[in-house]
C-alpha cells in the first residue's frame, strides 16, 4: 500500500509539472494595426521607398511616426475613438505631401489572455491624394492583431 501511494504521489508531481508547461506568450501584436505595403505600379511586389516621413493628422504634438525612413511596409495605428484616421505622407524630394484617409468600423475584441483585450477594425474606405501616390487598394479590410497586409499603396 505504501509503495502504491508513493507511486501515486510521484506521478502526481510529474503530471503537475507537465501541466505547468503553459506558454503565456502572445505571438501576435498586442493591438490591431493595419499594415500598409508600398508597391510599384501594376505589381503587388513590395518596393522600398526612401526619404519618407509619416505623421498622423491631429496627433498630439504633431508627433511623427516615421522620419526620413526607407521602408517597404509600415503599420498605421488607428484611432479607436473616431471612425476615420488621416495620415500625411511626405517624401524628402517632393514639396507636396499626400494625405491618406482610412474610414472604418470599430469593434471590441478579446481573443486570448496572452494578447489581451483590444479593438478590431473593418476598413470601409481608403482614399488618398495623388501627388506622389498613384492609388491605394484595401486588400484585407479586417484589421486584427494578426500581422498581414491590409493596404497596398501604389507608387508610380
Amino acid at each position, binding site marked *: 500500500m505504501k509503495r*502504491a501511494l508513493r507511486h501515486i504521489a510521484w506521478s502526481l508531481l510529474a503530471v503537475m509539472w507537465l*501541466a505547468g508547461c503553459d506558454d503565456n506568450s502572445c505571438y501576435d501584436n498586442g493591438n490591431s494595426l493595419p499594415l500598409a505595403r508600398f508597391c510599384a505600379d501594376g505589381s503587388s511586389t513590395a518596393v522600398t521607398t526612401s526619404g519618407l516621413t509619416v505623421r498622423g493628422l491631429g496627433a498630439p504634438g504633431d508627433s511623427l511616426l516615421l522620419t526620413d525612413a526607407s521602408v517597404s511596409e509600415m503599420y498605421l495605428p488607428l*484611432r*479607436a475613438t473616431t471612425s476615420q484616421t488621416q495620415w500625411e505622407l511626405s517624401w524628402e524630394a517632393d514639396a507636396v505631401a499626400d494625405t491618406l484617409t482610412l474610414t472604418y468600423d470599430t469593434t*471590441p475584441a*478579446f481573443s486570448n*489572455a*496572452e494578447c489581451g*483585450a483590444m479593438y478590431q477594425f473593418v476598413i470601409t474606405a481608403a482614399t488618398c491624394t495623388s501627388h506622389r501616390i498613384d492609388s491605394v487598394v484595401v486588400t484585407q479590410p479586417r484589421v486584427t492583431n494578426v500581422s498581414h497586409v491590409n493596404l497596398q499603396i501604389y507608387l508610380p
Partner: protein
Amino acid sequence: MTKRVKFMMTLLWALCMTLPAVAQQQPDTVPARRQERRITPVRPSTNTVLQPGRDMSADMIEHYILGDTLEAQAQARRDSLRKAYTRYPRLTSLWLGANVADLALTAFGQDYASVDVHATLNMWNRLQPTVEVGLGRAKSRPEDMNFTYRGKASPYAKVGVNYNFLFKSEPRYQALLGARLGMARVDYDVTDVTVTNSYWQETSTYDLKGEHTTASWGEVLAGIKVGIAGPWALGWMVRWHKMITCKPTAYSRPWYVPGYGKRDNSLAFSFSVYYTLPLHRVSPVAAEAGPPRD
C-alpha cells in the same frame, strides 16, 4: 481355392482388430500408472495422518481420503487457474467518484476550477462506460494585462469509456486507458478592459458582458486507480484533449471552458476519490467454466 484364401485372410483381419478391444474389456485389468498413483494419506511407516493444505478445498480433501490423488491434483490445478485467471461478471461494480484536482490547485493559485462527479460501470472488470457531470468557473485578472475575465459557473458533461489493462487482477488495482467526448456551456464576461494607443495618446474602456457560447471536445486519457481502504479508492488521470467546436461570439472567444480548462491548453489531469458499490454477490467465475455469466 481363391475363395478359401480370401475367407482365411478376412478371418485373420477380423481377429487382429478385435483382440485389443477384448483385452481392454478384461475386468481385472487396471492401468498400471493409475494403480501406482492410488496411495493412502496415511504414511505406512509412521501412521501419521497428512494434514491438508490451508487453501485445500473440501473436494480435494475428499479425493485424497478416497485415495484418488490424480483427481485431487486436477482439482488443485483448477483452483490454481481460478486464482490466476479470474473472470468477472458483466456487472462487476459501480463507482461513484468526484474529481477534486482543480479544487486542490486553486489553493496553489490556479484561477479556474472544474469540479465534477462521475459514475462508472465496471463491466467484466475490463470495459468501463462512464458519465461525468460538473460545474466550472474562472476569475482572472492577469498581471500586466488590460482585462478581467469572469467565467460564470457553467455546466459540462462528458461521456466515454475506460479499458482496464489489469482486468485479470482484482478490481482494487486498475491501469486505465480511456476516451471521452465532452460538451460545455460557456458563459463569461470580459470586463475592465482598458485599451491605450500610445501614438494617439488615447485611452478607452469597455466591458463585454453576457458572452455565451458552447464547446465540445474529445479527450484521450490514461491513469491508475488504487483501492485504499474498504470501498474507497483514489485515482488520477492524465488527459490530452482537443477542441472540436468552440464558436466565437461576435466580439470574443472564451479563455476558459468548463471541464476543459484553458482553451489553449491541450493537457490536463484529474484526481478523483471513488466509492465502489459491488454489483455481484457470487465469487468470480473460474477461467475453465467458460464465458462469464451475470
